[in-house]
């Protein structure tokens, strides 16, 4: 199996961590957020709307992100997400936790 196979099912906790990490860098709307993560994954990841928006809304419910309305260049309404203070703490925690998991998996599986 090629190692660059595109994944379209990200574990729930990992998707949360990815969304928090992307939003820690800049405020983004859903489409831009998905494309940013896909670009960062160099084509190995495809984020589906079926998981993207529910995950964002779950983070919103938890108070980790907040959304505000802006307008796209053609005037359509656009919802932009940003991290709250507790979201920034969550982002740091999730990043550390998933990096540790990735290190552990790499240590076990890559040998």
């Amino acid at each position, binding site marked *: 199996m090629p190692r660059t196979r595109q994944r379209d099912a990200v*574990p*729930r*906790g990992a998707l*949360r961590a990815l969304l928090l990490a992307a939003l820690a860098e800049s405020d983004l*709307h*859903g*489409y*831009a957020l998905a*494309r940013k993560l896909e670009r960062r994954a160099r084509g190995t990841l495809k984020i*589906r*709307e*079926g*998981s993207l*928006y*529910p995950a964002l*809304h*779950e983070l919103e*419910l*938890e*108070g*980790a992100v907040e959304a505000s309305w802006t307008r*796209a260049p*053609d005037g*359509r*309404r*656009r*919802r932009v997400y940003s991290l709250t203070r*507790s979201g920034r*703490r*969550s982002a740091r*925690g*999730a990043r550390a936790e998933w990096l540790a998991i990735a290190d552990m998996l790499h240590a076990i599986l890559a040998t």
Partner: protein
Amino acid sequence: MYSGRMKDELERFVASLAIPADRKAIILAELTDHVACATEAAARDGLDPEAAGRAALGNLEALRRSLEAIEPAFRITMWHAVGRGLLAAVLVAIVLDRGGAVMAGIVGAMIVVAIAAALAPPRALDLLRAELRAPRIRGTLGVARGVPIGPALTYALTVTSVPFVVWVALIIERAYAGATVLDVPPSAFAVAAAVCLLLLVEGIRARRRAAA
């Protein structure tokens, strides 16, 4: 911009979702923007915008399942949860206080747990699960770590604690009136025990899911 046919399809899909009306407007605006972004990007790259828009929508039934699981929770605000919690708590306190001997045992316990469950906010269990899955954060005092308290946990804490406040107030009032005999039936702890058990089970499930 994407075609009118896709726009109609998207509007029909969002209209058919079993979620609060105000959330439908938000979902429609978000998905409209998402599909429009995808079609614009495809047009820029010389690809088929219609196909790109359709691909951006993805599996609508999977999206429906996910949205219908999470969106109803937005209907519940903290004040809504506090209000329902207070109502349930006062009812529980009065029913046990006035119910006599029959309410002291298992029947009373079942009735007050049923009251607490019946007055819980809609989809409270889904909301509680979402709250328990939230990453642990350090509290305001910086001493302990825990999940942020959302509406479901607010309801649980209110319905658990307020009956005891009501009973303490009744005990004090009756003591002033000369009644000094105190009777604490086991059913007084039924709601607290049920809530603790629920939090324990769902908390363990949430930790297991997070670990998975």
